[in-house]
């Protein structure tokens, strides 16, 4: 068959992991890291075959938190699935809600009022901030820092969770977005409180930066570890800070421009090397960009309703059809694919989990490194098991 000629023809199997030959003699040591492990971000298992300290083979095993979210959604209405999306990526419930609401709004052709869009952006960027802070905290803890950066990160997270609780009634599982807007309006006092919290955030990022970025141990352990090339990252479907750390300029907020993101002035930080240190720095820089977006949104937020007057919340029966809606969640591209057959329940409800797909190249990054680095590389992928297993 004739195909269009490409400039560089890829050899067969270029996107498979390169096998490493063991150097020593004898059998390989097979270790199961997990599912109960202090550093695996939840119940996750990696079957590692070691030659001394070097990793020869790594196979991840999933499913320890498979809660059949997709099957449940087929048995209940569209609105009833909204609280379940909170529990997917349980560190960032707001962005999960947003992705689902966006997918349904695409399916039914629903518009969203302006104030609701601003609130979505404000809450989404606050979520992104606390997610990146916690992620850096967990990464450094696995490096052996005994929890101090995590304590600092959770201190800021508590302030943000207080804001969430005041607005939505729950610290974590907020269940805030609806198809056509947001559930509750924010009062002027809440916006003032948010402005005060956001004023304190740059100081925290500076503190974090000063404490960690030029730390000798951090630099020695993370620079040059877990390299990921841009080509392999794109082919493996990696998204989010991992992709940008490998130098690929792809941020769904800029590409799709969903919501009102094209009104805000923010940069997309890119990495040079694609190693663990780059991913750490990208997250730190994205925290600063989130603060920039928050400042602009808090200044420009307009009045008006938070639910569209044409929105139908209960008894929603979308016409038969399908839609795929995606957002830039803090972990990567979170998408929802919905097929409707005209009934109350979705016919097919699919979550595109960024954490699971980012783990596709875990084996590639870990082959040939020492076992101690596996924990770091795994921590830099920043996964949440609720999303991997759904």
């Amino acid at each position, binding site marked *: 068959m004739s195909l269009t000629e490409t400039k560089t023809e890829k050899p067969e199997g270029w996107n498979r992991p390169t096998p490493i030959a063991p150097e020593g003699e004898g059998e390989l040591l097979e270790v199961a890291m997990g599912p109960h492990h202090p550093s695996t971000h939840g119940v996750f298992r990696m079957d590692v075959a070691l030659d001394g300290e070097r990793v020869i083979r790594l196979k991840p095993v999933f499913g320890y938190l498979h809660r059949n979210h997709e099957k449940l959604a087929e048995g209940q209405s569209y609105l009833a699935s909204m609280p379940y999306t909170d529990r997917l990526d349980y560190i960032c419930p707001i962005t999960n809600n947003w992705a689902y609401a966006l997918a349904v709004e695409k399916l039914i052709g629903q518009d969203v009022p302006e104030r609701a869009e601003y609130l979505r952006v404000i809450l989404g960027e606050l979520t992104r901030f606390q997610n990146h802070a916690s992620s850096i905290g967990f990464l450094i803890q696995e490096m052996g820092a005994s929890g101090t950066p995590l304590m600092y990160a959770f201190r800021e997270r508590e302030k943000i969770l207080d804001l969430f609780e005041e607005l939505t009634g729950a610290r974590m599982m907020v269940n805030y977005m609806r198809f056509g807007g947001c559930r509750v309006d924010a009062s002027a006092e809440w916006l003032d409180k948010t402005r005060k919290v956001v004023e304190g955030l740059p100081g925290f990022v500076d503190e974090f930066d000063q404490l960690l970025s030029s730390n000798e141990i951090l630099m020695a352990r993370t620079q040059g570890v877990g390299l990921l090339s841009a080509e392999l990252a794109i082919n493996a*479907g990696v998204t989010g800070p991992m992709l940008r750390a490998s130098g690929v300029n792809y941020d769904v907020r800029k590409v799709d421009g969903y919501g009102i993101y094209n009104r805000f002035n923010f940069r997309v930080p890119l990495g040079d090397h694609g190693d663990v240190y780059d991913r750490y720095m990208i997250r730190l820089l994205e925290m600063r960009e989130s603060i920039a977006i928050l400042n602009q949104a808090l200044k420009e937020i307009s009045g008006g309703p938070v639910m569209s007057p044409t929105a139908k919340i209960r008894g929603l029966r979308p016409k*038969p059809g399908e839609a795929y809606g995606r957002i830039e969640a803090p972990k990567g591209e979170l998408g929802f694919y919905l097929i409707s057959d005209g009934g109350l329940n979705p*016919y097919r409800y699919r979550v595109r989990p960024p954490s699971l797909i980012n783990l596709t190249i875990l084996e590639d990054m870990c082959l040939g490194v020492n076992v101690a680095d596996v924990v770091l590389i795994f921590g830099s992928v920043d996964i949440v098991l609720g999303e991997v297993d759904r």
Partner: protein
Amino acid sequence: MKTVEEIKSMIEAAVPGAGVEIVPNPSPSGQHSLRLAPSHAIQIAKFLRDEAELKLDFLSNVTGVDWPDKEIAEKAKVTRTVTKTVDGVEQTVDETVEETHKRIEAGFLEAVYHLYSVEKKHGPVVLRMRTVNRTDQVELPSLTPIWRSAEFQEREIFDLYGIIFTGHPDLRRLLMWDAFKDHPMRRDYVEPDDFDYEPTAHDEVLKRAQAHKDKEQKIGNKEQGSTTA
């Protein structure tokens, strides 16, 4: 971004003999899909990935869908010659009767691929592939050699739906344990009976609770010696 019709004509020009048809999407999202015949799928995929204007190098999402067998009842008017007694005399008359024919349209399993382009920043392009039926002919070619991101997602579809992807480097179960025998996301999956108490049981749950109670009573009262609080 090219429309679905343009992409279809590009594919048919580059891969001759490819079976491509457009599946329209009636919802306001406007994301129409292209249905590929499994025989040419890998060549079409390579073309879509490498072609200069499309450059669909990023496979975002692979979904499995189960379309069960449909029973279709058709009414048809049938004219038949029968012998009837009319006024005491036997005659052969043409009689028109309306009959209902029931036939079963075979269901199938489907895999849906969402493609984007990182280089050109456009998308999505939606591809679909269907198996022949749900029971024995459930093979589809795996697109993992073209896009690595299909690796885990196709394994998950194998686990939950039962589609066998030929050419997949490591096809085994992803989410359920290896000894598990069913394909849980299929529409006709029956859950195991591990009954638990529901305070406000209704509809199906109440039926299951009743059935379980009858089963318990049949087994014997000695098992029901649970201590009450």
